[in-house]
């Protein structure tokens, strides 16, 4: 009896020891790589932001100059980040990450850049679950389709032509997939409408000094996000 107990205790001890060593190793690796991983993620996001505002020399840190807005009707998701790109002290473009709720196979996450003159700097797809070979032509690396938004605005084409060709609009659909491009075209249009309605608030929001440290830049972002009076759907209606 006592012998059995001893065996059980030894087994438990061995298992516990391995758990401690395993967790320790993982925690050590995590601590060693955390900084590098965060830097990689920032660099990757920054690269995506630069890609949608071609020809602009970004002079601030848009990742720190963020306003969080909430307008599920126009922007899809519960909250949407608005990165502000400054050049020569002025906000020259807003970059939003709206959600397309009605993709063919679940929500699609977009990155949409709107320049201060109301034209689109560019649109990219951040994540999606569309059918490989059909709906996934919305990815820039698979097809040029998503580039057809460059330079478009609510005046060009006129609002009623912000549709895929099948619905009488100016945007291509792909063979075999209409739902995906249709959802994206409409979502981009809604984003433009949102920026047109709320743009003034977004641009006017307290400027963060380009030279300021990221820590202080985070303050207006949180203020704007927490305070629905600044920019939100209820505000407009």
């Amino acid at each position, binding site marked *: 009896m006592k012998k059995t107990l001893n065996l059980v205790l030894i087994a438990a001890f*061995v298992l516990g020891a*391995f*758990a401690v060593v395993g967790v320790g190793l*993982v925690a050590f*690796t995590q601590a060693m790589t955390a900084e*590098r991983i965060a830097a990689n993620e920032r660099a*990757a996001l920054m690269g995506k932001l630069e890609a949608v505002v071609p020809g602009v020399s970004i002079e601030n840190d848009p990742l720190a100059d963020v306003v969080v807005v909430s307008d599920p009707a126009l922007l899809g998701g519960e909250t949407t980040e608005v990165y502000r790109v400054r050049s020569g002290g002025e906000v020259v473009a807003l970059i939003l990450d709206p959600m397309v709720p009605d993709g063919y196979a679940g929500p699609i996450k977009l990155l949409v850049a709107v320049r201060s003159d109301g034209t689109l700097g560019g649109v990219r797809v951040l994540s999606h679950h569309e059918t*490989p070979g059909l709906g996934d032509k919305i990815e820039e690396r698979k097809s040029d389709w998503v580039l057809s938004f460059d330079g478009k605005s609510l005046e060009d084409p006129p609002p009623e032509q912000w549709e895929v060709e099948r619905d009488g609009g100016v945007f291509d659909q792909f063979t075999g997939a209409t739902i995906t491009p249709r959802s994206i075209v409409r979502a981009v249009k809604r984003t433009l409408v949102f920026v047109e309605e709320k743009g003034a608030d977004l641009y006017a929001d307290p400027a963060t000094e380009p030279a300021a440290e990221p820590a202080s830049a985070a303050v207006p972002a949180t203020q704007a996000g927490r305070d629905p009076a600044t920019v939100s759907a209820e505000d407009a209606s």
Partner: protein
Amino acid sequence: MSAPKPYRQLFRDGLWANNQALVALLGLCPLLAVTTTATNGLGMGLATMAVLVLSNATISLIRNLVRPEVRLPVFVLVIASFVTIVELTMKAYFFELYNVLGLFIPLIVTNCLIIGRAEAFASKHRLDQAVVDGLAMGVGFMLVLTFLGGLRELAGQGTLFYQADLMFGEAARALSLSVGPDFQGALIAILPPGAFIFLGLLIALKNLLDKRAKRRQLERAAKTSAPVDPAVAAG
């Protein structure tokens, strides 16, 4: 503890005779999920091989410490720790590769091939044997992954090693092949059912080759023994 096996035999088993993907049918979850392109297959194969060698080595080292009652939970702990470490390391030093494969790396934990080798081989053999076994089984698995990925990619979108440069740097761009921009491809090859169909074809091909090799061996044996008979009769 089992007797050590010659390295040659370990490689023969890992690459062909006991190929974990084609014969043991282990590790199907990552096998079917990531093999949409040859590049993905190769990347996943490399990550799996790294974990397999590390886990085999560790388990062989601790095989006399661990009581049989708790060996499986200990193996799982060891494997899960290594997978997390590989994932974090990839995220820190091969970020592009991680973006392509990221979702599937944690799946390596569920790859029965790894715990299978831990239980069936590494826990009963010396360190060098366990490492070579891990390497051989890992290479065998990687080759199947890459080959299956290549087949599905070629049939589905008419390319081979598409965007290999994303994973292995600019030098790998030369690897990328394309049948031509007009090639429409059979979409089913990239979709999940295609994975099952092509894996089935691969297994059939292996069985066919094995059968043919066996028949040839029998014929040769018959031929060498035939001339002996008259001599025996004469004597």
